[in-house]
């Protein structure tokens, strides 16, 4: 899957949590969930659950802690998918 395809798939997942809709429209690998999208930190666990559902993967506690940017989320999902 191309990076851009991942980004497009992540956008609607992040949409309900993102307080900054402008930043959501210009999503890049560098976009930070908290700093740029202004997602409430308590909602990060909900984002992870929604990502798990969308990509049909299970994300462990350690990966979860690192999932703070779009790029990190893509890398984690890619690693999970390829290790199948």
């Amino acid at each position, binding site marked *: 899957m191309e990076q851009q395809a991942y980004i497009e798939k992540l956008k609607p997942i992040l949409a*309900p*949590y993102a307080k900054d809709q402008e930043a959501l429209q210009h999503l890049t690998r560098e976009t930070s969930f908290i700093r740029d999208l202004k997602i409430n930190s*308590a*909602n*990060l*666990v*909900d984002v992870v*659950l929604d990502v798990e559902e969308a990509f049909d993967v299970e994300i462990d506690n350690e990966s979860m802690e690192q999932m703070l940017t779009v790029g990190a989320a893509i890398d984690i999902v890619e690693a999970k998918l390829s290790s199948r």
Partner: protein
Amino acid sequence: MERRVVITGMGVVAPTACSLEGFEQALRAGRSGIRYQPELEALQFSCCIAGKPGLDEGLIARYFDPLELRGFNSSGITYGMIAGMQAWEDAGLPVNLDGPDWDSGTIFGIGSTSVEKFREAIYKIDEGQVRRLGSNSVPQVMASGISAYLGGKLGLGNQVSTNASACTTGTESLLLCYERIKSGRAERMLSGSTSDSGPYIWAGFDAMKVCTYRHNDQPERGSRPMSATASGFVPGSGAGALVLESMESAQRRGARIYAEVCGGNINSGGQRGEGSMTAPNPEAVQRCITQALADAAISPGVVDAINGHLTATTKDALEIQNWCIALGRKGSDFPYIGALKSHIGHCLSASGSIECVAAVLQLQKGFLFPNLNCEDLHPGITEWIDASRVPQQLMEKELNILAKASFGFGDVNACVLLRRYAA
């Protein structure tokens, strides 16, 4: 000099209506909010009728954003938020966006909280799916969920907490808020209480056999406070909310004043004497009323009307007797008395606040709502008071002083004295 406290805003989500205006119309018309609930029959409840607010999606969307509604499953918080926000808007107060309003707070009561959300969580936990609870379980199931939701919406910077004292909760909330303003610790307090709807909240009462099972085919006739054929209460649900404010603050901002809170009392019978977990100690009830009058510096002779607790159990006659003894008034000298539960059932932890909203409307607009389903007044009641004291038709009447009391499991009592406001 002690500060005066007034009521400047109200909101209500009741089985009869989900707006203050609709609620007043139903109140005057004596419209019943009790309906047959097929869900209860399917679950083999004895009592298959109940009072449930009819909320529509549009109203919910006005007060909750889409993110808040994700994984949201709490009728109690929904009712409480809508009633609380309506009251705040009705008082003409801003929804603070920039910073906390240090002078405004809330003490907003509940009985049990978000029982449906709790059930959902327990199923997940038992299936080993703890992590799938996500982030939205705690704010809904914590006892103070309702005050936390309201505090966040309104930017409240004063005390934000939840009280619980069973069916006394709403009236207790009013008095706790009153005391906080009177003592100078806050300028504005949002008082209120809420109760979930549905089988999980009502089941325990059904099992205790305190709900009626005789009126499943006649829902509107089912809630019969003060009637000789009363056979238990009809469960209800919803929320009521009242903005209490210091007289200075209300006058400074030119707010409309509904009524004045003159004082009151909260006590318990200690589950001693005739009192128990479920039965009131009459000595405590009488003492609560007399102490409330003393606190408000109001003589029993000038009380024009009572908005009673009156649930439609065998204890109604005892309540009337307690009022008679406490006030030293009986027969045709007894104040007018009203049982709102005849319209909407027993809204449990929400009952005190919804009934306080009705009581304030009665004072402000000058009317006595019709008591439903008591055409056959209980002989234990007519032994003490004249039937004319229990209006069964709407009566337009200027009222100056009204007493409202609520009693609850745990042998707890609260009584508040309200005065009509004349500018």
